[in-house]
C-alpha cells in the first residue's frame, strides 16, 4: 500500500461499521470534475465473517483548480438525488478535516464499465446511440428542473434566491471571478456583461436545483445508450432552471461540429424534450439571456484555470489548454449569439 492508501484505509476503518482487516489498493488518479482531484480505489474488509470488496471514488480538494466550490454542496447534491429518477452514484463519506488526507475530501461509489468521454460518444459502438442518449440527457435535466429543492433537503445548504434575482446573483458572481482572475482584458465578455445588465431576463419560473455544469462529458452512459449517472455537481446551486438548459446547449460543447446540441440532438428537439420533462417553458428571449450568461460563466472558468496555471498553483496542462482554446471558442459563441460573427 502507498502512504495515501494506508491513510485512506485507516480513515475508512473508523467509518465502516464493524469492519476488520481494512485494505485499500489500486488508488489511481482519473479524469473527472474540474475542481477536485478524482481517484478510484478498491476497498476490502472483513465484516460479519464475510470478505467484502467495494470499488470507490475519492474526490479530494486540490491546491488549485478550474472552479472553487463547496464540497459540502456537491456531496449533498449527490445524496439528495440518489435513489430518485436522476441517476447519481451513492455518496458515502464527507470529510472536511484536512488531517486524514491533507485536504478535505469525500468518497462515493464507483460505477464501472461505463463511458463519459466525447471521443467515445463520437465512435462506435456509441455513435448510433447519440439520439437516444440525447433524449435521456434532456429528460433527466427536465427532471432536475422539476424537482423540489426543499423536499430534497437542499434549501439549507444552497442559499435560495428570489425568482427575479437569480440572474443577478449569478452574473455578479461570475463578473467578480473575471475581475479577480483575468490575465488580460476581455472586451467581448465585458460587452456581453453590459448587454446582460441592460436586458435582464424575466423572473425564473421556479426556483430549481441547478447542476451548473450539465453537459456532454459530465454523465456516464452504457452501451445501450442509457445514462447511468450524472456527475460533477461541484457548482450546484439554487436558481433559474434555464441556466442549466442554456449551458448544455452552448456551442463550446458541440465537439462533433455538426451543429447538434451537446453533439447529440438538434437544438429544437433538445429544448422540446426538456420542456416536456420539466413542465416549464424555454421562452426564446429568456433562453438567449441565459446562453449569453453561459458565455460569461464559461469565460470565468477558463480565465480562472489560466490564472491557476500562470501562478503555478496547478500545473495541469488542461488548465492552460482550456484558457487558450475554450476561451477563444467562448468568445466566438458569444459573438455568434449576438449576431456579430460573420
Amino acid at each position, binding site marked *: 500500500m502507498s502512504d495515501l492508501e494506508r491513510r485512506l484505509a485507516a480513515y475508512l476503518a473508523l467509518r465502516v461499521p464493524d469492519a476488520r482487516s481494512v485494505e485499500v489498493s489500486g488508488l*489511481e*488518479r*482519473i*479524469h473527472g470534475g474540474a475542481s477536485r482531484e478524482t481517484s478510484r480505489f478498491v476497498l476490502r474488509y472483513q465484516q460479519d465473517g464475510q470478505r467484502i470488496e467495494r470499488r470507490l471514488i475519492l474526490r479530494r480538494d486540490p491546491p488549485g483548480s478550474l472552479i472553487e466550490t463547496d464540497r459540502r454542496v456537491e456531496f449533498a447534491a449527490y445524496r439528495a438525488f440518489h435513489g430518485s429518477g436522476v441517476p447519481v452514484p451513492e455518496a458515502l463519506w464527507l470529510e472536511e478535516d484536512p488531517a486524514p488526507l491533507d485536504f478535505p475530501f469525500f468518497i462515493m461509489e464507483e460505477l464501472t464499465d461505463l463511458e463519459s468521454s466525447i471521443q467515445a460518444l463520437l465512435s462506435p459502438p456509441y455513435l448510433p446511440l447519440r439520439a437516444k442518449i440525447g433524449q435521456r440527457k434532456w429528460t433527466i435535466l427536465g427532471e432536475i428542473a422539476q424537482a423540489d429543492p426543499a423536499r430534497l433537503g437542499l434549501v439549507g445548504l444552497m442559499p435560495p434566491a428570489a425568482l427575479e434575482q437569480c440572474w443577478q446573483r449569478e452574473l455578479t458572481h461570475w463578473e467578480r471571478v473575471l475581475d479577480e482572475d483575468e490575465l*488580460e*482584458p476581455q*472586451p*467581448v465578455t*465585458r*460587452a456581453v456583461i*453590459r448587454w446582460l445588465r441592460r436586458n435582464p431576463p424575466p423572473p425564473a419560473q421556479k426556483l430549481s436545483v441547478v447542476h451548473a455544469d450539465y453537459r456532454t462529458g459530465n454523465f456516464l452512459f452504457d452501451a445501450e445508450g442509457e445514462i447511468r449517472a450524472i456527475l460533477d455537481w461541484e457548482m450546484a446551486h439554487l436558481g433559474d432552471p434555464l441556466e442549466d438548459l442554456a449551458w448544455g446547449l452552448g*456551442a*463550446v*460543447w*458541440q*465537439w462533433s*461540429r455538426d451543429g447538434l446540441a451537446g453533439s447529440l440532438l438538434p437544438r429544437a428537439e433538445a429544448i422540446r424534450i426538456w420542456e416536456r420533462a420539466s413542465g416549464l417553458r424555454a421562452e426564446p428571449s429568456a433562453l438567449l439571456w441565459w446562453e449569453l450568461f453561459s458565455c460569461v460563466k464559461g469565460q470565468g472558468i477558463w480565465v480562472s484555470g489560466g490564472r491557476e496555471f500562470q501562478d503555478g498553483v496547478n500545473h*495541469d*496542462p*488542461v488548465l*492552460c*489548454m482550456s484558457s*487558450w*482554446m*475554450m476561451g*477563444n*471558442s467562448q*468568445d*466566438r*459563441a458569444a*459573438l*455568434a449569439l*449576438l449576431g*456579430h*460573427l*460573420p
Partner: protein
Amino acid sequence: MKPEASHALERLMQALLTEIAPSVQPAYRQASVSIQAMLLLSVREELERAAARRVEENRALRALFADAAKAVTEAPLRDHLASAAASTDASLLVSELEAGNRALRALLIELHAHVESLVGPEARRIEAAIWRELSASTERRKLSLGPC
C-alpha cells in the same frame, strides 16, 4: 538550412502523441501527455502568427480610436483615445507587442461602454466598427483544435 521551430514543435507533438503517450501509465498521465501534445500544436499555431496578429490588431485599434475620438463627448477619454491612436509599437518583441495590445484592449472596453451610452447614428456607426474589430480579434486568436 536548419529545421524551423514550427517543424520541431510538430515533431515533438507527434512523438508525444504516437510514441510516448501510448506507453505512459496510468490512464490519467497518458491523457495528460496527450493534452501536452495538443498544447504544443497550439503553441506552433501561435508561434507562427504571434507578432503578426498583434501588429495587425494594434494597428486596427489605433485606427479605430482615431476615428472614434471625434465622436467621444468625455474629454479625458477623448484625450486618451487620441494619445493611444498616435502611439506606436516600440519593438517587434512579442512581449512588448502584447503589453501594448493589452493596454489598447483595455481602452477598447472603456470606449465600447462609452459609445453604448451615446445616442445617434455616429455612435451606432462606431459601435458597429467596434463589434467588427471584436469579431476580427476573435478570428485572429482562433485555434484549430477549438470546438467552434
